[in-house]
């Protein structure tokens, strides 16, 4: 067994790990980044310009392989014939759950992690969110407020490039925005018709997203080919592979080690510190130990918690840094899928160029100015207007020459709202180690216990009501309201299980993502989240990561770490 020593170890190379790597190396630390999956070569692995006719199933996907190897991952829209390779093999990466409580854990193991195929939506949290737990008593109070994180939002947004529109809303703070993408004509119509209704509380804006609308940081603006989740040869959307990891590499202090499955964090009982990590080579299964002065877990919410649960020591028999017993608890994911759609027959204009990889956003309006009698917290809508293409032929009578001619030009406009709601932190939604299940590398697997509560179900129901009433109020016809039955996990905003808090007896991490119990151990991915808000969470992970690194390096300089 070899033993190599670094100043810092970062577990995971995705959204959070890339930021940890950049910040640690730029502050002078020799940093080892461990990635469980393999390397990505953008030149050959990015397939956004591969056309369906170049694929064996022309984009239908390999159904039999999906059902055999990716029976969980296939539920994600992006796990298709192009991008399926960016999602894990479910047979190699098992986890368990009760049949009555399905949880869809969507995972990517490669350099870049899920930043390769993430949804790219970026929304700041506000004090409405950071104060939510203390207001209604679910979960513990966040140990930070908006003022603590705002400069870090500025910092990460300026670096990665966010396009969006400033709205001046207190519940959805503005950021450092590049010019917004354009609304299409259906969206413009709904936005204009919505203004002045519902007391002005429901505002339609273009999605705020980590996609460049002008050159930024040496990267080209979006060329509107469409499917970002297949990669981007111009790195016009943010992923760690093309943005943060190169910055880290440029310092000369980065060691990036793919194929490195982290089994556990090693703990020095005598000194009360994390001493390093135990790694299993993904290809040879050879074990290696790496040591460092500080360890950052950025492996994704459930993977980081799994590593800690698998790090059992005499001092921490129930998992490292788990003196509170909270490790694994308070798992959350956004409840999604209440909404409505309809038709806009009065729109005559046509999309003439480009496929915009972004939609619209209606910021949270429930429980902002007054308390709703039926539910706590709130939700936001994504969605947008679309123009029918040839697919409408499936539902049209006819065949032959006239039929073909009709499908040559775009059809009418449709519009949809699709809600994303806050999930309450509850200790009964939790993960533990399944003593009877290991993965392909012998690492004990998780057993996940998670289900929606009445509050999430009421949010979903209310989404369908308010979405339909907004469509009706803006002249949308043939409105159909719906509540999709999506299991937790599928929103791929899973978070919690190692929450931040002020009290070491009721939380795992302090206000700087530092483990209360182990001072040189930091967790800065979604595991740290104390509540879920309803905003897409990635930008908050990035900001918290940069903030935690600054704190840790400062502590090291003071010899307090």
């Amino acid at each position: 067994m070899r033993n190599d020593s670094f100043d810092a170890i970062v577990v995971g190379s995705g959204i959070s790990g890339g930021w940890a790597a950049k910040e640690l190396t730029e502050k002078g630390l020799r940093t080892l980044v461990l990635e469980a999956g393999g390397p990505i070569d953008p030149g050959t692995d990015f397939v956004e310009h591969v056309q369906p006719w170049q694929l064996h199933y022309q984009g239908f996907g390999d159904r039999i392989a999906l059902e055999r190897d990716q029976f969980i991952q296939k539920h994600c829209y992006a796990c298709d014939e192009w991008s399926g390779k960016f999602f894990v093999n479910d047979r190699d990466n098992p986890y368990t759950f009760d049949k009555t409580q399905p949880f869809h854990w969507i995972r990517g193991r490669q350099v870049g992690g899920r930043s390769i195929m993430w949804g790219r939506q970026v929304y700041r949290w506000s004090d409405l969110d950071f104060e939510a737990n203390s207001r209604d008593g679910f979960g513990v109070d966040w140990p930070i407020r908006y003022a603590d994180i705002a400069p870090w939002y500025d910092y990460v947004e300026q670096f990665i490039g966010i396009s969006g529109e400033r709205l001046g809303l207190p519940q959805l703070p503005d950021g450092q925005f590049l010019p917004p993408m354009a609304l299409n004509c259906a969206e413009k119509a709904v936005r204009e018709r919505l203004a002045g209704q519902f007391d002005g509380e429901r505002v339609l804006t273009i999605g705020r997203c980590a996609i460049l609308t002008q050159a930024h940081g040496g990267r080209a603006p979006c060329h509107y080919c469409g499917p970002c989740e297949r990669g981007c040869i111009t790195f016009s959307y943010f992923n760690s592979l093309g943005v943060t990891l190169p910055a880290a590499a440029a310092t000369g202090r980065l060691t990036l080690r793919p194929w490195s499955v982290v089994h556990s964090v090693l703990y020095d009982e005598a000194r009360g510190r994390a001493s390093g990590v135990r790694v299993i080579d993904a290809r040879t299964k050879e074990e290696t130990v790496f040591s460092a002065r500080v360890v950052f877990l950025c492996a994704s919410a459930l993977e980081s918690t799994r590593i800690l649960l698998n790090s059992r020591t005499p001092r921490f028999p129930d998992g490292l840094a788990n003196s509170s017993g909270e490790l694994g608890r308070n798992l959350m994911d956004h409840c999604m899928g209440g909404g409505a759609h309809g038709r806009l027959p009065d729109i005559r204009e046509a999309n003439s160029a480009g496929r915009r990889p972004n939609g619209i956003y209606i910021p949270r309006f429930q429980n902002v100015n007054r308390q709703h009698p039926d539910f706590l917290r709130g939700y936001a809508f994504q969605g947008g207007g679309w123009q029918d293409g040839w697919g409408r032929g499936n539902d049209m009578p006819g065949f032959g020459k006239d039929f073909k001619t009709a499908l040559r030009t775009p059809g009418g406009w449709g519009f949809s709202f699709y809600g994303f709601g806050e999930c309450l932190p509850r200790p009964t939604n939790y993960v533990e180690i399944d003593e009877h299940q290991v993965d392909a590398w012998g690492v004990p697997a998780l057993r996940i216990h998670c289900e929606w509560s009445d509050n999430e179900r009421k949010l979903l129901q209310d989404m369908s009501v308010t979405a339909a009433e907004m469509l009706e109020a803006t002249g949308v016809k043939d409105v159909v309201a719906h509540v999709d039955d999506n299991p937790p996990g599928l929103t791929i905003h899973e978070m919690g299980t190692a929450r931040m808090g002020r009290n070491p007896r009721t939380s795992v991490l302090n206000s700087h993502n530092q483990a209360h119990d182990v001072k040189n151990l930091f967790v800065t991915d979604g595991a740290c989240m104390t509540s879920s808000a309803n905003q897409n969470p990635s930008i908050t992970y990035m900001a918290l990561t940069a903030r935690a690194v600054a704190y840790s390096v400062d502590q090291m300089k003071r010899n307090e770490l």
Partner: protein
Amino acid sequence: MNRRDLVQLLGSLVGSAGLSSMTADQLFARGQAINARMPPGNGRGPFTPHQFDTVGRVTDLIIPATDTPGALEAGVPGFIAIIVGEWYTAPDRDRFMAGLADLDARSNQDSGRDFVSGSEADQTRLLQILDDEVSLLRAQNGKLDNNFFHRIKGLTLYGYYTSEIGMTRELHYQVIPGRYDPCSRP
């Protein structure tokens, strides 16, 4: 892949592990490996020559050649052979084959000839009846999934509009538009 390559590939498989000693899963995996090395659109898949001709004639009637090429030139029958042969479940495949047989049965009843041997007018009349049945089923909120004509029409549209001919020559699809222009006057 030419015939010699295929024979060599099959030979190497037989040589490396006796086909008879393989489990169904292993055989299937080998079959998949062979198919993966066959360029799409070249084979008849699970179809007999007669069935393949029937599929071809139906797709040609749904998306004919006009001022742009139609389904045949775009390789749609080959795409359908791949989907029905490799992607469909066995019950779906059986239903699809039964649909092809039913097409011949109806044609024989009408004109005493198989579907492909009929006149274009006979063929069009028969497809119109099938299309009307789909419309009726839809109006009654009936289940369309198992309807043969709904399925082959859907496969024809997908196969055509995702083919190189369909995307580039029919739809003038721009791979790299370079801009987003959402609201032009038609």
